[in-house]
C-alpha cells in the first residue's frame, strides 16, 4: 500500500488521471465507430510534429531558467528560416535544410539576447519570458509586413508585399520528413519514420550535450547555483548557453512542424504554441526545475493523445465538442499545478 502511495506521489495525480482518461478513450473508441488505427496514426503524426518543441524546454529547465514560456522567440526564428528558404526558391531536402540552418542561426542570435535579458531578471524569468514572447511576436508581425520578401508564393497576392497569413510549403518541402522511410501498416495507419528520426536525432543531441562538461555544468547551475558558483562556474554564461540551445531547438521544431502541417502559419501563430508545449513536458512528469527526455516523450504522447482523441471519441459519443475546453483545462491546469508545487 505504501508503495502504491509513493508511486502516486511520485507521478502526481493529474498525470495518472489523464493517462487513465486517455487509455479509456482508446478502449471505448471502437464502440463509437472511431477507428483505433486512424487515431494511433494521428497521435504518432502529432507527436512527431510537436515533440521537438517540447524537447526545447529541457535546456532552460535544467539550467534553472524555468519553463520556457518565451518559446515563440525560437519559433519565430524557425519561421524566418522557412520564409527565407522559400524566398530563395529552394525545394526538397536542400530547401528544408537551408531553412533549418538559417532558422538556427537566427535562433542563436535571438537566444543570445533573450538569455542576456533573462540573466538580469533571475527569479522572475517565467512571467517575463511569457511577455517577451508575446511582444516579440507582435514586433515580428510588423516585420513580416515590412521586410522585402518578393516570392509570390509567400507575399500577399493583391499587393505584392507583406507576407501572407499562411504560406503553403506544398511546392517546397511538404511532408519531406514524413514521407522519408514511411511505413504503411494499414490503410489508415502509417508511421512517418523520417519525422520520428529527426526527433530521435535531436533528442540524442540533447542527451549527448548533457553528458559533456558544459552540459554537466548547466545541470549543476540549475540544481544549486551557489554550488556551481563555488566551483568557479559562470552562472550567467551557462544560463545563456541553455537559453540559446532551447531557442535553437525550438526553431528546428517549428520547421519540422511546418513540413508536416503543409503551411507556414505567420503572424500570431507562434504564441499559440507556448502553453501547450509547456503543459506537455509537465504532463510527462517534469517539474519547474528538472526535466528529462523521457518526460518529453511521455508528455507529448499524453498531451497529443488527448487532443486527438477527445474531439473524435467524445464528439461521436455525446455529440458535444468539448475538446477545446478539455485542452484549455488540461494544459493550463497542468501548468498551475506545477507552479504551485512545493519545492524550489
Amino acid at each position: 500500500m505504501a508503495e502504491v502511495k509513493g508511486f502516486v506521489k511520485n507521478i502526481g495525480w493529474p498525470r495518472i488521471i489523464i493517462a487513465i482518461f486517455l487509455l479509456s478513450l482508446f478502449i471505448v473508441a471502437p464502440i463509437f465507430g472511431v477507428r483505433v488505427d486512424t487515431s494511433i496514426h494521428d497521435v504518432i503524426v502529432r507527436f512527431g510534429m510537436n515533440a521537438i518543441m517540447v524537447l526545447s524546454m529541457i535546456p532552460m529547465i535544467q539550467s534553472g531558467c524555468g519553463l520556457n514560456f518565451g518559446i515563440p522567440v525560437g519559433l519565430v526564428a524557425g519561421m524566418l528560416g522557412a520564409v527565407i528558404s522559400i524566398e530563395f526558391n529552394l525545394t526538397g531536402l536542400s530547401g528544408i535544410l537551408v531553412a533549418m540552418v538559417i532558422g538556427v542561426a537566427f535562433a542563436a542570435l535571438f537566444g543570445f539576447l533573450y538569455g542576456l535579458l533573462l540573466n538580469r531578471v533571475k527569479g522572475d524569468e517565467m512571467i517575463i519570458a511569457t511577455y517577451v514572447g508575446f511582444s516579440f511576436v507582435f514586433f515580428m508581425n510588423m516585420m513580416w509586413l515590412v521586410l522585402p520578401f518578393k516570392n509570390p508564393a509567400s507575399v500577399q497576392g493583391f499587393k505584392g508585399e507583406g507576407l501572407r497569413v499562411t504560406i503553403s510549403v506544398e511546392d517546397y518541402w511538404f511532408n519531406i520528413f514524413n514521407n522519408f522511410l514511411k511505413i504503411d501498416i494499414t490503410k489508415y495507419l502509417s508511421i512517418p519514420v523520417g519525422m520520428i528520426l529527426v526527433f530521435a536525432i535531436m533528442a540524442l543531441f540533447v542527451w549527448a550535450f548533457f553528458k559533456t562538461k558544459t552540459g554537466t555544468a548547466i545541470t549543476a547551475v540549475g540544481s544549486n547555483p551557489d554550488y556551481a558558483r563555488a566551483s568557479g562556474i559562470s552562472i550567467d554564461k551557462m544560463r545563456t548557453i541553455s537559453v540559446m540551445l532551447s531557442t535553437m531547438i525550438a526553431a528546428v521544431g517549428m520547421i519540422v512542424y511546418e513540413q508536416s502541417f503543409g503551411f507556414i502559419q505567420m503572424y500570431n501563430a507562434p504564441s499559440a504554441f507556448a502553453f501547450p508545449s509547456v503543459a506537455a513536458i509537465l504532463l510527462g512528469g517534469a517539474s519547474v526545475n528538472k526535466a528529462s527526455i523521457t518526460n518529453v516523450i511521455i508528455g507529448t504522447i499524453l498531451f497529443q493523445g488527448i487532443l486527438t482523441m477527445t474531439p473524435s471519441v467524445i464528439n461521436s459519443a455525446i455529440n458535444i465538442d468539448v475538446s477545446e475546453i478539455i485542452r484549455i483545462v488540461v494544459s493550463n491546469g497542468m501548468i498551475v499545478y506545477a507552479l504551485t508545487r512545493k519545492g524550489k
Partner: protein
Amino acid sequence: MSETEALLEIKNVGKEYDGNRVLKDINFTVDKGKIVGLVGENGAGKSTLMNILFGMNVIVETGGYEGEIYFDGKKVNFKDPVDALNAGIGMVHQEFSLIPGFTVAENILLNMEKTQQSVISKVLGKRLDTIDLPSIHESARSAIDKLGVQLDSQSLVSEMPVGHKQFIEIAREINREKVKLIILDEPTAVLTETEADILLKSMRRLADMGVSIIFISHRLREITEVSDKIVVLRDGQVVVETPAEGVDIGQVAKWMVGRDVDTENIKTSKVDKIENKEIIMEVKNLWVDMPGETVKDVSLKIHQGEILGIGGLAGQGKLGIPNGIMGLFPSGGEIIFEGKSLPLNNTLEAQKNGISFVSEDRRGVGLLLDESIDWNITFNAMQIQERFIKPYLGGLIKFRDDKAMKECADKYIDELEIRCINEKQLARNLSGGNQQKVCLAKAFAMNPRLLFVSEPTRGIDIGAKRLVLNALEKYNEENNTTIVIISSELEELRSISDRVAIVCEGKIFGILPPDAPVEKFGLLMSGIHTKEEGEK
C-alpha cells in the same frame, strides 16, 4: 536594596535535541529593574535558553524542555512568542525585523496600531478600523523618549543608518505597555562605539524605570560596564552567576572558555618549527563583504604544511576569510599565493591555482543535494582540472567519464567510510556526517596544495566529528597539504592546529600556540589584546 525581588527565575532548566543535550540544569534569577549580562561561546546554549524563554516553536516542536520557569511570581510555559509578549517579555533579535518602507513610528507600532472604529468597521469587523496616525506618532515618540535618543518618528526606516535601526527595535519592545523584561541579543554588534555607549545609557535608563534586561554580548567590556549581574554559560551549564561589581574582563573570559579539558587532546606547540617554514600564502589587508561575517582588515601569513586554526565568536568575520579568498563574496586587499599575486573575486582562478574550500554551508553551497555522490565528488575536478572527461572524435566531443567518476567516488567512499548504498545515492539522502565527508572528498579530489575547511564539524554527531578531524589530519600528514581550518569550537582547533588565530570584529586579534593558556584565547575572542600575542 534587599527589597528587590526576582522577576524571572529559571529553575533546573534543561533541553535535549534528538538526544543531544544542549542545556543542563540551568539556574539563575533576574531581579526587577536589573541588567543581567549573559555571556558564553557559540553553542554554549544561549540561544536555546532564549528560545525557551520566548516560547519559540522549535522548542515545542522538539518536545519542550525540562525544569521550571517563574515569571513575575507565576510559573510559566509559553507555547508561542505571542504568549511571551503578552506576559511582558520582549526580545530584540540580532537581525533587524523592520519594514523598510514604513516610518519609524509605523514600525514601532507594527501590528499594535491605535485604531478608530467607524460605521463600516462596526459591521465588517475590527480589521477595517481606521488607523489613527497622530496617536501612533505620539506613542512612538514617547517610547523613543524613554530611550533618551534622537529619532524622527516620521522618517522612513529605509533611509536611516544601521545604528538607528537597533533603537527602533528596542523602542518597539518598550512601547508594549506590559513589558517587564527585555532580552537584547548582541544589540551592539552593528553599532559604532559612540552609538553603543548611547545604547548602554538607554539600557540603564530603562532599568531605572523598572524594566529588567537580559543583555547578551560578546563585548565583555560592555558586559562588565553595564550589568548588575553576570551569568556565564559554558557547554550548556551555568558556570558562574555573580554580581558584576569588582569582576574584571580577564576573569569573565576565563570563565567563558576555560573548561577542564583533558590536556592530552591539545596539540603541543611547535610554533617555532612552523614559522621557519616558507610561506605558502600571505594575506594583506583583506576585507570581505559577507553578510553577517564581515571581514574588515585581515593580514595573515600561512606556512607551508601547517594546520592553521582560525577561531572566534560567531559573526566576527572568521567565516568571511575563506569565503572572500575563494571569491564567493566581494572582497579586496592583496593575496600572495606561492609567490604570485592571486586575483580576488575570482573563484575559478583560486581553484585553478590549487586552493580548495569546504564550505560551512554544506547543504546550501557544498553539495548538489539532488545529484549523486559521484557527481558531487568529481564535479570540481571535472570543471576545473578537466579530469573525468573522455574525448571522442579526436577531442571534438568531451563526454563525462562515468567509469572514472565511479572509481574515484568508490575510492573516497572507502577511505572516508562514507555510509551509503552506492555512489549513485543522492546526496540529499545522506546523514550530516556523511554529507560532510562527501564535501571533504570533493576537496581532496582536487589534490589541493592549500585547503580551507570551514566549520567541518558543525551539526554532525560526535563520532563523525572525530572521523572528519582525523581525515583532515591524515591528509595533512600524507600529502603535506597546508590546511586552514575555521571553527567555532576552540577545543577542536586546539586539538588539531599547529597555530590558532583568533578573529574578532573583522580582524585577526592574535595568533597563539594551541597549548597557550585558555584565558588568553578567551580575551582575544572578546577583542582584548594581551601583551604577548603571536605575530601580528
